[in-house]
């Protein structure tokens, strides 16, 4: 099985869609000659031409809105917001329009739109460029939110997104584009709303998405050295969210830990924790632990920045002290 990076997996998935479906086109800031700020669309312009690889003005609202309109007009647009932070300039189009047109039109119009956005901090970009806002979008009915952690899931979820007729926010963490993993040659998809047990364990469930899956995995390895068996659950998509798989894990381990890069207040981890206690309260052997980004705008300084984001060491110490393990 070939081993590729998340970046390569996304490139593969986008090319596949462009090859297969003439109604697919990509638009975004600097996706053309520049090749995309994160190089996912490098070489696309030469291969597919300017009609299908549309470099847009720096105007996020019309970028997303035009994606919505083109989708209503029968196309399958992929809009690349350079970062999720810029998505705030398109909030009206994403939340007020793309998410609601199907419902408000009584089901007459669908919006098969993929909005790709780079998320996450830790890259020395300071507060405005280091946010994890996917949880905000996940609170909106009508939107779907994908947050892959591996090349396999990045490709599988992207393929599912192309097969889906709904507006999808596809959040790609900036620091894991280079993460490698095995991806089969044969066509496969990864469904929305299905979590995966990345590591099986018996004492603690570590629930995470995107980059924090890797942090949780590293922490699980550390905790295993001390005889604490952790199960790592990658939820993969925030909306739909697979509470059942998460709850099943918690029913087994009786201890739930949500590891999340976003801020604690109102973060998606709060939703995870809330749903766990709703369905598995009696299975808990202690309060649900949330390990989140610090409640600060992310600082530029490297040391302070690192302090603001959960890492394996923090997960290990928090788990031990919280559960007296």
């Amino acid at each position, binding site marked *: 099985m070939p081993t590729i990076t998340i970046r390569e997996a996304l490139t593969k998935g986008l090319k596949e869609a462009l090859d297969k479906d003439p109604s697919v086109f990509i638009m975004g800031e600097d996706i053309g000659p520049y090749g995309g700020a994160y190089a996912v669309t490098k070489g696309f312009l030469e291969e597919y031409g300017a009609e299908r690889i549309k470099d847009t003005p720096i105007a996020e609202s019309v970028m997303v809105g035009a994606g919505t309109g083109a989708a209503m007009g029968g196309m399958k647009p992929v809009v690349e917001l350079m970062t999720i932070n810029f998505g705030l300039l398109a909030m009206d189009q994403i939340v007020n329009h793309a998410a609601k047109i199907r419902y408000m039109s009584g089901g007459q119009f669908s919006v098969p739109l993929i909005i790709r956005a780079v998320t996450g901090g830790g890259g020395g970009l300071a507060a405005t460029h280091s946010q994890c806002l996917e949880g905000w979008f996940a609170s909106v009915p009508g939107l779907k939110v994908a947050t892959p952690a591996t090349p396999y899931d990045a490709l599988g979820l992207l393929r599912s997104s192309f097969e889906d007729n709904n507006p999808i926010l596809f959040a790609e963490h900036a620091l894991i584009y280079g993460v490698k993993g095995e991806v089969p040659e044969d066509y496969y998809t990864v469904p929305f709303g299905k979590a995966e047990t990345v590591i099986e364990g018996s004492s603690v469930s570590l629930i995470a998405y995107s980059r924090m899956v890797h942090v949780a995995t590293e922490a699980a390895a550390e905790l295993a050295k001390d005889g604490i068996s952790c199960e790592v659950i990658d939820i993969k998509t925030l909306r739909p969210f697979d509470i059942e798989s998460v709850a099943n894990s918690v029913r087994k381990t*009786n201890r739930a830990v949500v590891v999340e890069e976003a801020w604690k207040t109102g973060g998606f981890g709060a939703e995870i924790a809330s749903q766990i206690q709703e369905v598995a309260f009696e*299975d*808990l*052997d202690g309060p649900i632990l949330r390990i989140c980004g610090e409640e600060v705008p992310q600082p530029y300084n490297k040391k302070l920045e690192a302090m603001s984001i959960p890492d394996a060491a923090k997960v290990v110490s928090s788990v031990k002290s919280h*559960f*007296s393990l």
Partner: protein
Amino acid sequence: MASEIIMPQMGYDMKEGKVVRWLKTEGDTIERGEIIAEIETDKAVVEMEAYAEGLLRSIITKEGDSVPVGSVIGYIGTADEVIPEPDTKASSSDASSGSDPKEQESTPSQITDTTTVNSEVRASPIAKKLAKDLNVDLSTVKGTGPGNRITKEDVLAAKDSTASVISNQLVSKGHDSEGHLPVGSEKELSKMRLAVAKVTTQSKQEIPHFYVSVDIDMTHSVETRKQLNEKLAGQIKVSINDLIVKACAQALKKYPSFNSVYVDGKIKTAADINIGIAIALEQGLIMPAITNCQNKSIPEISIASKDLIDRANQGVLKGDEYTSGTFSVSNLGMFDVDNFIAIIYPGQSAVLAVGTIRSKPVVENNQIMIRSIMHATVSVDHRVSDGAEAAKFIGEVKYYLENPISLMLD
């Protein structure tokens, strides 16, 4: 502020209690949940746990003295706390008046550093669920989680030491700093036997027993039980003993002398009919009671009985369930016993002993018939009643069991 040690209420009808023995002396360190004294109620001697930790600062009620339920019998506190005078009858709120002003200024959090009052059990949701499923009494479990929260592991560990929990509830024993003893130790068993010895000796020494026996034709009861169980379709399984308990309850309504106790020249008749059923555990015999039998139907008695037996086997009966009986039934039917006589449980005035139901030839209308016969003997406190009344009483029991349809009428 120091924590009061209160004379506990250990049965619904307990009004006062006697301090039989303090297991701690003033100045001893007390763990929360530790047994600190033996208290004698009207019916039994029970152990008393500390609900606070610290030092036993003051013993107010001396051994052998009785005080009303709710009275302060001692104080637990820190070494330098001012403790009310031993003869102070005031409640805790009054107790601090006139004490060192510094103490009054101190904040609750400073006090809880050394003296923690356990107002409620802190246990995780799964621990609570497990405790319920496994019949583990969380108040007897020491929490090892954060903030002494009882965790799943704590409940599982407690389940393993069920036997010691049972003995904690029934048997007086010397102080044990861990609060429980290893399972199945010789010491453990001898204490249980010691308790049985104490109770039976007291009974035989104090209560002038006499006995009345009858053969009861259980043919109809056996048939009725069968029909009842068919009707209940497996939801409840009624036993012969349940019918016997019901028959006794009916008879006791008519003859309340056997639902009473002799105390200092007076006969006190109980308001409710609570029938103790003898349950043989590995560690010894216990007599927990099915309460309010006068208001219970046969299926209700059956449910209550099964619950008591289950929880007795798991060692999670509550203290007052051991002591609230007003009459008892001892049934050795399952042991293939023809007949036996039982010793009256202190605090009661009678006990019915029944043996195995056997098919026996009986002469009826000059014909020999095969009937299901059970031998029954009632033991009675002669200070309360005498042979004639006892004969009527057991005759009533016999009537109900031979005409079980009449048990359904109530």
